[in-house]
């Protein structure tokens, strides 16, 4: 590290003096973007609003736009994303802003529900646990997507979401794909109906921004392609 401070521009809502406030933040060799935002809130401007909880990349609540890219800020090292010694921090794209860096996540979670993103079980607690073969191809397909932390980075990265407000988005559709491949889920038809509507998986253009930016390394684009195949197989009467 040569520089002793970083120039940090933070987009404010509602706009204060300017649309974005600029802060000088002490530079450290190892600090995350979330550390920088917290430093601003604690030492420069206590009115700055942002959201975080776990700080270790599990809860999915701290995603923001950092130099134009959606990122999980608690696991993003400042030195890896710095541009000319500066950070440009803005609220997540494709969401209504509540205040400053806190966005309204309701549309994201509403679509999660709309895509039938909940387990449809059939057994009660009195019955034996359903056996799951960990080596089956279906289970492998489900496993590939279940580590999603709902950070909505994919939703912010997707241009189809930006252009089409009905589109369910990569996270919700990937969730539907994992349930479809779960041997214990009993509502295949309900899931396939939910992802075949006017905002469903068929709107995806496979631009791959979800997969390119997913911080956990998941591949929603391929999951959505799987849904497209599954809906077509059903339409042809094969499943």
């Amino acid at each position, binding site marked *: 590290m040569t520089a002793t401070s970083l120039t940090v521009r933070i*987009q404010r809502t509602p706009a204060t003096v300017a649309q974005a406030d600029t802060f000088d933040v002490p530079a450290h060799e190892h600090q995350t973007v979330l550390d920088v935002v917290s430093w601003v809130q604690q030492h420069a401007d206590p009115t700055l609003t942002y959201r975080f909880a776990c700080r270790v990349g599990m809860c999915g609540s701290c995603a923001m*736009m950092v*130099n*134009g*890219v*959606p990122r999980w800020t608690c696991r993003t090292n400042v030195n890896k994303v710095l541009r000319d010694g500066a950070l*440009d921090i*803005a*609220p997540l*794209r494709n969401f209504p802003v509540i205040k400053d860096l806190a966005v309204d996540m309701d549309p994201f979670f509403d679509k999660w529900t709309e895509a039938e993103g909940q387990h449809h079980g059939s057994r009660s607690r009195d019955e034996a646990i359903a056996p799951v073969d960990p080596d089956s191809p279906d289970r492998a397909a489900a496993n590939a997507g279940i580590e999603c932390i709902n950070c909505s980075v994919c939703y*912010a*990265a997707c*241009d189809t979401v930006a252009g089409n407000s009905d589109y369910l988005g990569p996270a919700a559709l990937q969730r539907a794909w994992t349930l479809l491949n779960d041997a214990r889920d009993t509502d295949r038809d309900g899931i396939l109906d939910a992802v075949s509507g006017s905002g469903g998986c068929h709107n995806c*253009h*496979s*631009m*791959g*921004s979800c*997969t*390119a*930016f997913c911080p956990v390394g998941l*591949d929603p*684009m*391929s999951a959505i*392609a*799987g849904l*497209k*195949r599954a809906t077509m197989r059903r339409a042809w009467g094969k499943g």
Partner: protein
Amino acid sequence: MKRPARTHALWLAYVLHRVSGLGLALFLPFHFLVLGLALNDADRLDTFLTLTDNPLVKVAEFGLVFLLAVHFFGGLRLLALEFLPWPARHKTLAAGAVAVSFLISGVFFLQAV
């Protein structure tokens, strides 16, 4: 609000596919109207076709053939990606689509000049 960085291969392939498709869709009515001239007035079709000797028109033709080729191979790439469960190979496919399109439109151009 800043737009997210889109410098990855698949996003570029998506935009190329969309812009080439848009270009082709806008070109089609003119294509049909010109060919429709043969219905009543083959001489006017001939007059129009002499335009194709113009070097500028040849470059435009090259562009059209490129649009068609790139949309064709980009479309095959999409169909393969969606219908055949091939993981992680789409970037190569995307690059290949552009390469083959250049080849075909290059052949067309060399024939034309």
